[in-house]
């Protein structure tokens, strides 16, 4: 047995990891990403003449948890038909038993890199609002992402925002459909973990990313809801705004409310958070902050500065006329 050169080792490792697409209509391309449970590869679909992204488990999955999670993610994505959610094209199982799904190939920058190219706070806040849209859409359909972070938000070349990696999303209506008598409206999506504290995740199981996980999620509480995503959105908002902008009390209050320790003190969902950011951008009162009278006056002055300037100019002109002509 001779020692293998480094180049051969690299190629052999790739040969092990690369999905065997024989039996599918796809032709394997390069690896474009790697997540906690699998890797993402470019694959060409010669029949439709397009390149897709193919997500597949890296490893054999003795317990079956990861395979269930991957399939579940594909079904969550299929349920979320929104421009801000990557559409799924196809699902299948490789000859070695690893499940995969094909989705739109997303090109662009991750959120933090894209935001770094935006010079004004206003532009970055508008970008944040576009992140809120698919999350709000998901919340309206009873789905909580649970892993919102910059690397899971992609910004395309035309400013389009896509929220990725719904692998640990939680389906709230699964819980409801279990309690309701009769068959569910649509087939339930299998949870990836045993149900103890709620569907999808057992109480005590911690899934998510430190720094972006709401306190109750980090503790492994079973019943996290949309407000866990609100917390992560608050962290994203803080990052997008930057420390300078957070000296503004109203914006700081929005971040503080989104990232409140107790879920009950947060916005109830992404739409409410987005609405407050829109109010901030429009110079209107935000729900997160009770203004003092002089602050309200100052905000009023800023918001109507053109009209005020015109009024002041008019009054100055009138005063000048009075002084000069005495009438």
């Amino acid at each position: 047995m001779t020692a293998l050169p480094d180049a051969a080792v690299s190629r052999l490792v790739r040969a092990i990891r690369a999905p065997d697409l024989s039996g599918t209509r796809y032709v394997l391309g390069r690896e474009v990403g790697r997540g906690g449970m699998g890797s993402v590869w470019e694959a060409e679909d010669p029949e439709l003449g397009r390149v897709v992204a193919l997500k597949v488990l890296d490893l054999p999955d003795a317990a079956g948890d990861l395979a269930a999670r991957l399939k579940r993610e594909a079904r969550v994505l299929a349920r979320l038909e929104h421009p801000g959610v990557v559409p799924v094209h196809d699902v299948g199982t490789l000859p070695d038993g690893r499940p995969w799904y094909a989705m739109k190939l997303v090109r662009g920058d991750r959120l933090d890199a894209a935001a770094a190219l935006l010079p004004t706070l206003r532009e970055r806040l508008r970008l944040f609002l576009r992140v809120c849209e698919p999350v709000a859409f998901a919340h309206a359909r009873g789905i909580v992402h649970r892993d919102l972070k910059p690397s899971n938000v992609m910004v395309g070349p035309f400013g389009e925002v896509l929220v990725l990696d719904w692998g640990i999303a939680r389906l709230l209506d699964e819980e409801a459909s279990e309690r309701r008598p009769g068959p569910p409206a649509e087939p339930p999506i299998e949870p990836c973990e045993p149900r103890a504290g709620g569907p999808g995740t057992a109480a005590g199981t911690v899934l998510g990313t430190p720094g972006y996980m709401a306190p109750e999620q980090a503790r492994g509480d079973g019943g996290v809801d949309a407000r866990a995503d609100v917390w992560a959105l608050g962290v994203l908002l803080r990052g997008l705004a930057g420390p300078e902008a957070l000296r503004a009390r109203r914006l700081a209050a929005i971040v503080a409310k989104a990232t409140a320790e107790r879920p009950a003190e947060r916005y109830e969902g992404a739409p409410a958070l987005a609405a407050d950011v829109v109010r901030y951008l429009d110079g209107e009162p935000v729900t997160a902050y009770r203004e003092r009278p002089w602050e309200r006056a100052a905000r009023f002055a800023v918001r109507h500065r053109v009209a005020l300037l015109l009024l002041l100019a008019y009054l100055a002109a009138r005063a000048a006329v009075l002084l000069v002509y005495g009438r």
Partner: protein
Amino acid sequence: MTGGFFPPTRASVVEALRSGDAAERERALGTLVAAYWRPVYRHVRRKWGKGHEEAADLTQDFFAELLTRDLLARYDARKARLRTYLRLCVDGLAANAAKAASRQKRGGGAAPLSLDFEGAREELERRAPGSDETPERAFETEWARSVLALALERLAVALEGRGKGIAHPLFEICELGAGAEAPSYAELAERFGVSVSDVTNGLSLARREFRRTVLDLLRELTGSEEELRLETRALLGIDVP
């Protein structure tokens, strides 16, 4: 699919070395030696600064001790990976000068293993260590290299034994070829006088078989499902979360 993706296969070497079946014990030892002798030799030279002769002797001693002192009896898969346990055993052996002095006695007359230490020496001296490579990392790298090399040997036997014609040569050309880029499927089809689809099918078969062989081998070289998962991730270069 039930029970995961690992097909039922040979038992872990940890159990097989204690088997009552002499053939199974011998096969398990062969697997263990093939996967670990180069990492052990390299580790003794790099970490302990031993010369070629002494490192080769210590490597032989290590495998002799493994059997005579039944070192694997103390191995607990819940506490450490087999790879880590074996490396610590090597460290213990190398650190103990008194034991080193009584090597001949300890060997207990066990026949020395036929290992290509000269080849390992040339390989080691040709490859300068990376500046940030720890002995542990070097041991892991050499282990991965040995596992893949052993899997290649098994792949050749499996494919040739099943009369899978061009699958193995195709795999060698595409995955082990010296050139920066493998020849195109059309070039390979012309070279072997077959169709392009025969080439793609042959390569798919060989890659699938190689993957299965590597995973089988890892199962043999680990003591639990969790360790198997960790070692697979280590071999594939994926950080364990």
